């Protein structure tokens, strides 16, 4: 896929427009790419879209008190290599954990790489978890 086509996925206007119901914000990155941020309070047991990169992927989370279901949903016939920062994974359960949850998706056919960080704060008396997510999506070349 040529660079022009890949750049269609890097539009902050599109990320804001299609993620409007999620309250998403976005901006262009220096050197190319898009930064998308969103936050959400999610009830335990609900599967909610935390972050939407239009045409590329949607990140769904299902929080429980001490476990977290993660669904990276690819929104097209893209070949994607997802990698998790496993050393950060226990940070959901352990509030003293030092790192946000980290996920990296390499869209090899598109020449794009998504670097995702998610902070979580569990409100146990509200039976819910607050997520703050950001994704930096950049061309790899």
């Amino acid at each position, binding site marked *: 896929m040529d660079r022009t086509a890949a750049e269609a996925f890097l539009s902050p206007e599109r990320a804001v427009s*299609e*993620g409007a*119901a*999620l*309250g998403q914000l976005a901006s262009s990155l220096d050197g190319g790419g898009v930064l998308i941020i969103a936050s*959400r309070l*999610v*009830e*335990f*047991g*609900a*599967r*909610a*879209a935390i972050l*939407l990169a239009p045409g590329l992927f*949607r990140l*769904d989370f*299902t929080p*429980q*008190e*001490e*476990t977290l279901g993660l669904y990276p*949903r690819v*929104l097209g016939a893209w070949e994607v290599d997802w990698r998790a920062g496993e050393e950060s994974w226990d940070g959901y*359960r*352990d*509030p*003293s954990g030092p790192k946000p949850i980290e996920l990296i998706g390499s869209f090899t056919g598109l020449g794009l790489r998504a670097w995702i960080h998610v902070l979580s704060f569990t409100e*146990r*008396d*509200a*039976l*819910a978890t607050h997520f703050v997510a950001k994704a930096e999506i950049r061309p790899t070349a």
Partner: protein
Amino acid sequence: MYRLTFSGDEDLLDVVLPLLPAGVHERGEAFVAYSGAPFAAAVLEATGGAVDEVPADWRARRHGGVVIGSVGIRSPFDPVSDSEIDVVIERRGSAFGSGSHPTTQMCVALLLQLEAGGAVADLGCGVGTLAIVAAKLGWGPVVGVDRVPVAIEVAAENAQRNGVRADFAVADLAVDPIPLAPLLLVNAPPPVHDRVASSLDASVEHVIVSGIVSHEVQAVIDGYAGFEVAHALGTEDEWIALRLKRS
């Protein structure tokens, strides 16, 4: 508060999840979504679902934690459960075992297969969930050990909260002596199983094993020499629980 109930697949979720900030709950074959404002026309059109009104506070529509057979495990913030055996579990800090993890739930399911009676040791007890369930089912005496001090502190509080007698102590199962009993509950990673398996004596009749994933199962079973698998449970995301009995 409005509730929308509908059926569909992942392709439908691709359309509606970006329009439903609070997400969806799976209820059997159906999805349920909640919203404080009327649902968008695009959501109603895409799902063709039915809308009714429910309490605004989502805690008021919860049914009380998780239910495994006759046992309900809930947090102090959940409504009272109508389960025959109602277990209330507090969790703090890095301590494990609120009951929300599938390994805890599978261990309870396997525990329910045994006729209650006799001593139990919960090795890696976290906040005491399995030990307390065992005590409520009629097992005793019950002991629990964990290497995390806050877990033991909370486990003792949980035992008191549930009105059961169980003794909890801080112990590192990698180096400290391992308490043994006719029934062992070991919801812990493989290195703990290695140490427990090498410490067994003739007093141990059953071991409920979890904290492992599918590719670790055979090595763990092999470690428990003289035992065989009486029942196995698993989840889609590869967590495994086994009930071992002496061969």
